[in-house]
């Protein structure tokens, strides 16, 4: 995954492994390089190794094998307080016995910055997160969102080149989370900070990041930009983990370049794009996004295969309609259609035919 040149990479994980007990590897062979100014998200279910990677970068865990480089320098032997990395914690980790301004002053004081310069920087940092009037408050007097804003300001106030965020929005309600997602990405890009962001929320990952590294089982399953990740998942795990996904299983019967034919388990035939399959007779799991399923035969290619489907449930969601179908024995096949004046509102029990462009249906590992 040498996607960036190692010379101009700012953060590099080079064959990094981590084991806590000396037997099982929590992180298996991690290779990753980030250019300066990138916003990279480590996304994955709990226990996938993403937080461990972040902790190794911050210096709170040591890599069992391999090397981590920051600005070209190996940092394995540098203690956390000499790495100069800013960090935002999930529980904010504000010092309860200090006021907001004292919290922000702390990293500047330990760097020996003079009083007038400190005050100027604190003021600037608080204003940047719209907390300018709160310098004299104590963390306990602030709401969760305000506390996280202060934590963000504190991580940025000493102008680190790299900022780590460990599920910083996990404890906030949905609306606030969305506002802060927006603010964080803006700040990061405005200040040109390199950011590593850890989350298990895929929407957050997609909306905020330049690139997303999907973790599972101690490995990066795919490292790509959000649109690539969503539209071109490289394996079943990524397809399933990112966004809503329909799966159908079957056997490859024919491969013709960019197109393959698959016989589903109930005998029906459908077209797909071969991604993780290489030969006829192989079992495959196909992935198709709910919004790419087509009910209008006219929009399909000539001679395209279609599948019979029975409507099980119609859910009105305002902006979209979400319809649950039974397709080839799968009771959980979802299609999403836009709420438009001419849009069909299907009723349970209706029989329809569905199909898709072969390029939208990816034949992945079974």
């Amino acid at each position, binding site marked *: 995954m040498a996607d960036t040149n190692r010379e101009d990479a700012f953060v590099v994980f080079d064959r990094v492994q981590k084991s806590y007990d000396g037997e099982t590897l929590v992180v298996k062979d991690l290779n990753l390089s980030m250019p300066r100014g990138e916003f990279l998200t480590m996304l994955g279910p709990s226990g996938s190794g993403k937080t461990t990677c972040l902790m190794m970068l*911050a210096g709170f865990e040591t890599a069992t094998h391999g090397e981590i480089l920051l600005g070209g320098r190996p940092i394995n032997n540098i203690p956390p307080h000499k790495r100069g990395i800013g*960090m935002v914690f999930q529980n904010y980790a504000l010092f309860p*016995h200090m006021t907001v301004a004292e919290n922000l002053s702390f990293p500047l004081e*330990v760097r020996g910055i003079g009083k007038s310069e400190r005050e100027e920087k604190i003021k600037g940092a608080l204003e940047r997160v719209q907390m300018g009037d709160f310098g004299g408050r104590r963390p306990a007097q602030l709401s969760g969102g305000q506390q996280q804003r202060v934590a963000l300001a504190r991580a940025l106030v000493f102008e680190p080149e790299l900022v780590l965020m460990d599920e910083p929005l996990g404890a906030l309600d949905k609306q606030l989370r969305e506002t802060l997602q927006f603010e964080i990405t803006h700040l990061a890009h405005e200040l040109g900070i390199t950011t590593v962001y850890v989350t298990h929320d895929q929407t957050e990952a997609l909306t905020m990041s330049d690139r997303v590294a999907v973790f599972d089982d101690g490995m990066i399953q795919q490292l790509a930009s959000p649109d690539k990740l969503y539209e071109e998942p490289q394996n079943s795990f990524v397809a399933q983990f990112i966004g809503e996904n329909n799966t159908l299983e079957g056997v490859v019967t024919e491969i013709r370049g960019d197109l393959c034919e698959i016989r589903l388990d109930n005998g029906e035939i459908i077209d797909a794009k071969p991604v993780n399959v290489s030969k006829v007779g192989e079992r495959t799991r196909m992935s198709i996004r709910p919004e790419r399923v087509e009910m209008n035969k006219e929009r399909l290619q000539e001679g395209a295969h279609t599948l019979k489907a029975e409507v099980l449930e119609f859910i009105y969601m305002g902006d979209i309609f979400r319809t649950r179908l039974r397709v080839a024995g799968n009771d959980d096949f979802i299609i999403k259609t836009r709420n438009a004046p001419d849009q069909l509102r299907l009723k349970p029990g209706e029989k329809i035919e569905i199909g898709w462009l072969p390029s939208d249906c990816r034949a992945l590992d079974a």
Partner: protein
Amino acid sequence: MAALPPYTTLGQRIWHYTFRTIVGLVLFFLIAPILVIIPLSFNAENFFTYTPGMLALDSEAYSLKHYRDFFNNSDWQQAMRNSLMIAPAATLISVGLGTLAAIGLSQSHVPFRRAIMAILISPMIVPLIISAAGMYFFYSRVGLQGTYLGVVLGHAALGIPFVIITVTATLVGFDRSLTRAAANMGANPVTTFFRVQMPLILPGVISGGLFAFITSFDEVVVVLFVGSAGQKTLPWQMFIGLREQISPTILAVATILVALSIMLLTTVELLRRRSERLRGISPG
């Protein structure tokens, strides 16, 4: 007294009042011996009993002569000075070592934490006379027997368990990500300790120190074994006084000590509450 809800049965009613009576008796049992001493210390006679005059509230029967005796007698003054030197010194050592031990023992990577904890706490569990005898033999070997340092160290050993217990309890609620955050912002471990961890566990440290101080201030067994006449403390002097001269001055001293203890506890508790409120740890 809160009114009982209308559905209480006769049995519950009886139990309700029996329970209050028992609680009252327990409280009386604990407090009475202390309260009885206080008027007696103002006795005009040299006896340990209430005279008919005292019971009749005759002002002639009361006097401050025992208090005068305490402040003028060089034996008592020497004991007072010793106590006021030994207790703070022992407290300082207990607080320093106990706090460090508690912090160390709260780190998950320390091996044999439970065993080490048990050993450090043992002076609280082992009968005092055994600890004292052990200290006596050990300290005489190393030349500490009969010295101030010996008594201070002995008392510090008795005070450490209290500090460890109270500080460990405060550390349970301590958020480790705070020290991580501090490290991340560039603070070395020593700065982190004094600026972040210490202020937050201070209430526990103070209560532990208070217990350690009272332990040393009240202690008689270890001082009898490890100390010599030169290091006699107030409890030592009271103990000898009881055996040899039975003077009500002891009661005057006891009263002063009780008053001192109450004042000390109140002050520290008020300070602790104030600092907690200021720190925003407990909702104000």
